[in-house]
């Protein structure tokens, strides 16, 4: 698992980062580097697959590709984490992780949810994706669609 220190962290625990060489997920990160959010799609039957897998669970084809999605979604559920198990996150608590439901595709993504302190979250809240570069990868994050950006 590739790891790198966030700029300015001065030697504290490194953030766990994705393995950019993972063959199944490589395409996802190539798209996030271009600030595009994609989901996996089967080239044979068109089924949308999330999380990405070696092949299609519907038709068993191994020809998989990526389909761009709009980058908006609605908040399906969330948790505010106060007790971090991964060392890097100990200094980030409390932080929010959510499940964001994408419209038009049967996909729900786990994601880093950024909200201003005091914002009340609710099921169905519209969310918009953002991208941040950390070391050599670009990670998506989510924030309320009405947050001024």
């Amino acid at each position: 698992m590739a790891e790198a220190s966030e700029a300015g962290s001065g030697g504290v625990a490194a953030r766990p980062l994705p393995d950019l060489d993972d063959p199944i997920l490589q395409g996802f990160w190539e798209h996030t580097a271009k600030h595009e959010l994609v989901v996996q799609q089967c080239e044979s039957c068109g089924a949308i697959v999330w999380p990405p897998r070696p092949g299609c669970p519907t038709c068993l084809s191994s020809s998989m590709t990526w389909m761009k999605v709009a980058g908006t979604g609605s908040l399906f559920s969330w948790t505010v984490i106060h007790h971090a198990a991964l060392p890097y996150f100990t200094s980030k608590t409390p932080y929010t992780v959510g499940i964001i439901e994408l419209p038009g595709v049967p996909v729900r993504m786990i994601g880093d949810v950024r909200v201003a302190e005091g914002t009340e979250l609710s099921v169905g809240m519209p969310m918009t994706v953002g991208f941040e570069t950390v070391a050599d990868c670009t990670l998506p994050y989510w924030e309320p669609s009405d947050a001024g950006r």
Partner: protein
Amino acid sequence: MNANDRAAIVGVGMTEFSKSSGRSVEQLALEAAQLACADAGITPTEIDGIVPFPLGPSAEDMMAGLGLPDVRFTAVSHMGGASSVSSLGLAALAVQEGYADCVLVFIARNGSSGARIADRVSSLPGQRFRKNLEHPFGFSTPAQWYSMWAQRHMQLYGTTREQLGAVALTMRENAQRNPHAQMYGKTLTMEQYLAGRPIAEPYLLFDCCIETDGAGAVLVTSAERARDLRQTAVSIAAVTEGHADSPDDIANRRDFFNVGLTKAAPRAFEAAGLKPSDMDLAMIYDCFTFEVIQQLEEAGFCARGEGGAFVQDGSIAAGGSLPVNPHGGLLSEGHIAGMNHIIEAVVQLRGGAGDRQVADAHAAAVTGWGDMGDGSLAILTA
């Protein structure tokens, strides 16, 4: 896996539960096995089948440590915490088919002083996307995964913190009648529950089960053999397992609250020829408070969305219509992956639970829960 009353639990044994056992897991396992043999009135050398928990000491550790002359059946269930219950099914299958005459099912862990849950889960399914799509966002433990269910249930059905707290308080209250429980002598009020430090909201400290150093073992034989032994035989009427769609990812389940138990429970009741309302008590795998509500709903003890009210109205308390975990559960007795729930069910069905005894206990349902909601259900009768 359906035993149809041809297999029985004939002996049970547990070490003490503590924060620090001061001994190895192998030693704990050997002690529990010997206690189970003494309970059954057999010598350990009669054991000719072993089903160990997927984490911890192995079957070979027991063969060597107990000096077993000829073990002819071993198997391991890989369902995380659900393995204790599903292991009963493997043991029942073995004795029914004559692969073994006396099967040892056991678990031993130093879960408090040794590897804690955050370390244990690195062997769970779905590691590729756990590491790449979850860990970068700081999402990595069962408390964090399962809190998503609790949050949505509260939003959709109005389940309240106080209802989650009712589960914690019921378990703690039950533990006050159980000297073996780690929380014996340590009461919990609703104020204390609500003031518990947040872990992964909505989960607070007392929504989470404790960690334990300890071991538990049960012995399974055929019903015929059981009749010759000293304890009232507890019949394994049915054991089933089930896996949610998909088994390694919670977020994308179309029916979000469905878990392995949703499939396993109806199969078990049908195999046993019984209904949820026939159960005199229920042992529910209480890794977290909300999971008790979820499993009561998914197993059919109450309707989806009504579990909050069900746990708050006294139904699950001692003396209620469906006493849950009279021993205090994982939340208050201790966490040996539900082997203690099987053992308590056996003690209750034998009529040996003293001031914890559920009146007229003849049928008990025992759930298993593991990983991302794999499930198992055993129906035990006496």
